[in-house]
Every structure is written in C-alpha cells, then in structure tokens.
C-alpha cells in the first residue's frame, strides 16, 4: 500500500482512462444514462461531444445502443450505476451483448454498499453474481485507482464483453502506477502460510490490514487480490489454497454469486479447504454513511481477523 498517494475513487480512474482512450482511438464511443457526472464519463463527454451519447434515464436502451455501436464497428463504453447496469438492463446485456459476444464495455460505478445514504435501491450487492452468470462476460473488480485505469486501458482491444465495477469512495493506492497488465487476474500481494485471504475491490486494503493484525497473533496470512472474478485465475487461487489449506474471502457484495462463490468453486474442484466468506449475508442494505454500513455489515479488517481465526479453529 502506498500511503504517500492521496486516496482516489476508482470511478475517477474510469473517467480519466476513458478520456485517454478517446484521445488515442477515434473509434471509441461512450454512452451514459444521465449519470455522467457520477460515473465520470463526463470527462470524455466534454472533450468528445460528438462521440458521447447521453441516452437519458433509459438503461435498457443504452445497453442495446451500445451493442449497435459495436455492430457498427465502434468500441462502446456504457456506464451507469452498477445496480441499474446489471439489474435493470440484465436482459439487454444478456441478449444483445453477452450472447452475441460483442465487445461492449459495461463500466458500472457505485458498486457495493458504499453508495451509502441512498440506501438499498442504489446499493449494488448482486451485480457481480448477475454478470458472472453470463457466458462470454469478463468480470473485473479493480482494487484501486491505478488498477482501474489499467483495466480500462486494457479493455480497448480485448475481445468479447466486459463488466468493470468501480466505486465512489476514496480508495488508498495499492499500486504505485497502473500495472502493465491485469495479468492472469489474481495477484499475491502478501505471502503467508497459515491462511489465504482472497479479496476484491475496496476489501483488498482491509485484507492487508487484517493480515498485519493476524501477524501480531502469530498467524501468517497470504493476501490475494482477485481483480478478475471471471474467468478466475484458477492457478493462483488453487496454489494459494494448496499452500495454506484455509481461506477467507472478502467482498463488498452478497456472499452468494460473487468472489466467495468463485473461490469456493475453485476450492471444490481443485483443492477443497475449510473456508469462511465475508460479505453481505443474503440481505438488502440500508441507508447510512459508508463506514457505518461497512461496520454494520461486518465488512471490516476486524471482522476478517475474527473470521480467519474462526476458520483456523474449525476442524478439517
């Protein structure tokens, strides 16, 4: 973690990367559904108004217009809040983007609980599960500004559809600069031998904090940043499971369908180990300040430590 750099939101990285893509490539178009100031696509809109299409409050139309742009030879980026991009427009994403395997980039901001005070209508805690279900869909949950920037830049010439989740909260820097590649999709940030902590998004920083706390208790935790949830990096995940024999997952998402399930699927097939999943326990969110909500729903380093100890104390 780099504490010298001032924390920045991952959605800002999307805005800046999209603008850079617009400068480099004339075939990039961007769409938004009346949230360009929130998703940060406004940076692109200001520079390239002729290639920016605000569809208004009409997410379903946006997803299919994006598909049309791709069929017409463009690289289309469609952004709105994660809850609307995936839930409201699921049929459009399924039928006209995922099934025909079109390279539309759905970049969804305001993922997770940390939208905060708006409450459960705007908190996206099912989006990863929905997107993971779709064949062809690549699902990316970057952990900091730089990784988000890299993911968006890399998305330009990747085949097939892609879902990139960004967030509103200011997030500490894990990477000093945009990594050259998202690589295979999982990155061992800290080596350990007793238990693996797999985390994504804003939970990666908390996983590093939890590992530091566990060290004080003589527990060696390995921290793996799983930024690509689909296709998941089976080799890195399975190798870590084999090394430590125990696992905890942490995500700002329902424990159903997201990272916890993705790691459990790898574990079940390649290296069965005792696991604990930290996430939203099959309930809807509610209004509150982001930090209060993370505490309320147990998405903290402290709860991660507790869960890790519980898993370690459990029998095989």
């Amino acid at each position, binding site marked *: 973690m780099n504490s010298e750099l001032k924390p920045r939101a991952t959605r800002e990285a999307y805005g800046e990367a999209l603008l850079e893509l617009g400068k480099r490539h004339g075939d990039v178009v961007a769409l938004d559904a009346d949230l360009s100031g929130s998703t940060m696509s406004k940076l692109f809109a200001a520079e390239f108004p002729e290639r920016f299409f605000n569809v208004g409050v009409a997410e379903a139309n946006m997803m*299919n217009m994006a598909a049309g742009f791709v069929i017409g*030879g463009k690289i289309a980026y469609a952004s709105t809040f994660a809850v609307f991009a995936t839930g409201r427009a699921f049929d459009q994403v399924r039928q006209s983007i995922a099934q*025909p395997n079109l390279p539309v980039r759905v970049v969804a901001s305001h993922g997770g609980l940390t939208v905060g005070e708006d409450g459960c209508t705007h908190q996206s805690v099912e989006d990863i599960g929905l997107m993971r279900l779709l064949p062809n869909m690549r699902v990316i949950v970057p952990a900091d500004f730089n990784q988000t920037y890299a993911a968006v830049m890399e998305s330009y010439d990747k085949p097939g559809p892609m879902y990139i989740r960004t967030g509103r909260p200011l997030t500490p820097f894990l990477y000093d600069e945009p990594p050259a590649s998202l690589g295979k999709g999982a990155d061992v940030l800290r080596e350990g031998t007793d238990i693996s902590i797999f985390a994504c998004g804003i939970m990666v920083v908390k996983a590093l904090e939890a590992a530091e706390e566990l060290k004080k208790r003589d527990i060696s935790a390995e921290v793996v940043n799983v930024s690509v949830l689909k296709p998941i990096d089976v080799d890195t995940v399975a190798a870590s499971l084999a090394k430590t024999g125990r696992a905890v997952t942490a995500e700002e998402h329902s424990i159903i369908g997201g990272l916890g399930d993705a790691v459990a699927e790898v574990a079940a097939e390649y290296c069965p180990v005792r696991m604990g999943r930290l996430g939203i326990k099959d309930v809807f969110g509610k209004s509150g300040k982001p930090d209060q909500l993370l505490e309320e729903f147990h998405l903290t380093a402290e709860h991660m430590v507790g869960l890790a100890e519980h898993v370690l104390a459990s029998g095989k």
Partner: protein
Amino acid sequence: MDIQELNLTANLLRQDVVSMVAEAGSGHPGGSLSSTDIVTALFFNSLNHRPDEPKWPDRDRFILSKGHCAPILYAALARSGYFPVEDLLNLRKIDCHLQGHPDMHKTVGVEISSGSLGQGLSVSVGIALAMSLDNLPGHVFTLMGDGESQEGEIWEAAMAAAHYKVSNLTGIVDANGLQIDGFTKDVMNVEPLEAKYQAFGWTTRQIDGHDMQQIIEALDWSRSVEGPAAIIAKTVKGKGVSFMENQAGWHGKAPASEQREQALAELREQAETLRSSAGKA
C-alpha cells in the same frame, strides 16, 4: 423487379415459410406471413446489398426486431443468395445454422441476434449512429411488431432516435393486430401507433402492408425524411393461408402435414392467379 415479380417472389417466400415451419415442427408462421410482402420489397427491391459480399460496408441494414419471425428472414436471405435454399428445411434442427431466433454469428446476412422483444430498435439506433460517424451511405430498416411495441424499450429508442435526429433509420411496424394471447387491442392496446411515433418526433406514414406498390413507395420515401421515419404497415396475420389468417393461434404453431399441403395448394393457386392476371394485362 416489377410489382408482378415481387408479388410472385412474396408468394414463393410464403411457401418457404409454410414448408420450413412444418418441417421443423415448430416456429412462427403467423407474423412471418404478415410481414412477407414488406420483407420481399426490402430484399428484392429496396435494400442496397450484396449477398455475395454480406459485410460490404456501404450496404443498407435490415434488422428483424421481431426475431420470432426468423422464417421469413431466412427465406428472403436464401432466395436472394446468401446461402442455399435447401438449408431452409433444416430450420431449428441441431447443427443447422438457422436457429429458432436469429443469431448474427451463425447465419450469414443476419445483422443482429434478436428474439427478446423490444430490443431491435435500440440496437438499430446504435448502428445507424455508428454509420453516420463513419459517413457510410447505408440506411437501417428495422421491422417490429405491434405487439412488440408494448415493450417500453421501443419508446426509449424512439425518443433517442428523434433526439439524435437519426435520418438513416426507418422503423417499420408490421401491424397485424394480433399477438399470442389474442387481439392486440384486447391484450394491451398500443394504438394509435402512428400518432405515438409522431408524438415522439418521428415522421410517419401509414400503408397497406400487402400492397407492394405502397410498400415500395413508402420505403423510398422514408430514405428522404429528415430524422427517423416510421411506416405503420397494416397487415393480416397469417396472410395468404386461409385457415391461418387473423388467427392468434397461428402465432407460433407449425402446420400438420395435411395443413401444410392445403396451405401450399392455396399459395400455388394464388401464384397461378397472379400469373394469369399478368397475362391478361
């Protein structure tokens, strides 16, 4: 092609639809037959396309938003030379490229995958805008159903097309007045369609969707309209087959073998009438 030839071609495509759906044992004859004359006018007269060069960048695009009417699309594609006519009889069979609903990656000439209703117009707006950005000359023709127009996304797309003044787009509604559960006016009335499109900022024209001359003129007219153009084509579901006409039950049902023979006999008779009336003229 002159009007006589186009009408005969439409008749041939109707026979194809009956045969392929019967052979498949499932499929959607009703809406395929109501839209046959429109699709024929497009593929054999109006569209600027090259079946031997399906990805020709300057081509016009035909988008079948009412994707369940795949049989008429496939018949038109085959008869205009995109793939062998013999393939039609393998509709919906495993390993055949002709899926139950259109798949852009499986069938040559299919511009977009469709079948989930209400989506085609949105995709068409995106394609038309992309073509404008590239200064391509092609025009996008999108065929929708009146039942399909109950989907809210149609009106989201209609709004966007007018807002962005998409002039290279024509929306055609195959208004046959029927849907799976009965008459559209009873299930969920979508009329007045023409006034709705006008209210959304489109220029409109209403025609008889079985009058080849009117269809051709309307398609030509729509190219010259500033902004998006809508053609509301009044049609008869199951047109050309007496026992299918105006019957909701034939929306998605295959004719049994005797029904198939009767339907084909009727259509052949209509072809004879067309030929003899031309002879007299």
